[in-house]
């Protein structure tokens, strides 16, 4: 059982996870803040049921993705590609060509469905198919099939944005 301070410490150490999910699903700063708040509130409500059967970071991913995918907004704003947060790419000391390719990949990911975005995010975080399956509620085989399709889709889409 986590006390309030223990929960805050755990979230502080893992808040990158929540920020990543917010950046993936929301484009406007206000929406990102709202989602961040909602994820934290849900995590706080659910912490009493967290028995430590998985790592805290994995559990937080699950809460964050659940919240992001079921997030309710009265005015569903459309995402404009030009508003995509490209600053994440510029921190790397990459060549111009590589940077362009990464920006194109970010844009391609932003066009995926909410479910595919979640799969890509977990894949990029190095979770194996079995773990991804546990978080998403599907089998590892299903994850593998979906990931293959997504990879083909992203390769095509990213070419379009170059």
């Amino acid at each position, binding site marked *: 059982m986590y006390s309030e301070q223990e929960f805050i410490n755990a979230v502080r150490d893992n808040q990158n996870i929540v920020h990543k999910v917010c950046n993936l699903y929301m484009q406007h700063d206000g929406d990102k803040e709202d989602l961040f708040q909602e994820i*934290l509130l849900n995590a706080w*409500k659910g912490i009493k049921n967290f028995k430590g059967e998985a790592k805290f970071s994995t559990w937080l991913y699950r809460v964050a993705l659940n919240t992001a995918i079921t997030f309710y907004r009265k005015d569903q704003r459309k995402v404009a590609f030009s508003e995509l947060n490209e600053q994440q790419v510029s921190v790397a000391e990459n060549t111009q060509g590589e940077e362009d390719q990464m920006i194109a990949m970010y844009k391609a990911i932003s066009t995926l469905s909410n479910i595919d975005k979640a799969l890509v995010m977990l894949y990029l975080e190095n979770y194996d198919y079995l773990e991804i399956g546990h978080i998403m509620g599907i089998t590892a085989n299903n994850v593998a099939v979906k990931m293959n399709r997504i990879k083909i889709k992203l390769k095509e889409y990213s070419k379009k944005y170059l």
Partner: protein
Amino acid sequence: MELDEFKQILQSIKSEEHFVHSDETLQRIIHSKTSSVIDKIKKSIVFEFAVGIIFIAASIWTWFSYPGGYVRPFSMLTIMLCCYFFIYLFNLYRKMNTYESASPAVREKLQQVINILQEFVRVYFQLSILVLLIAFIFGLITGYLRVAGDAAIIKFNWQRALFLYIGWFAIWSVFTYFFSKWYVKRLYGNYLQQLKGHLKDLENG
């Protein structure tokens, strides 16, 4: 660029990402109010409880004010129907509290939210019909008592009055039905479709 190549590059720059909210900010957030859809439905249920209490209070008042033979069974029926809905709403509210604190897999969570929304929409329609039914019987009884109790009204065309009353009520019922349907769809209809789409997306191998 391939996704795996992208992953490799991302991992090499990962350590440079820093997002830090202070402990005070995190503490403030966990004590703030939620704006989730479950919370909105919970507020609606509390409102429906309040409406039910008003109906019960009105029925009790009617019970004591009109001791005539027709009114008391009607008051009793209203109270019983309200109690039935109280049990129904209470169970839905309790189910939502359980769902709210659970952190299941994404697929299960989607199914839970869809179930709650569908159940809420069903309760909303049933309540609308109940209110209509109660209003119909109430109007019928009070109208009858008013005419029957007025000695000045010697000749009254009951058939015509009943025909007009039922006609007017039919129009009102149709309006309420379509208004409720439009209102619920406007509130949650598109959202529900979106969630069903996500679930289908997840379940399709």
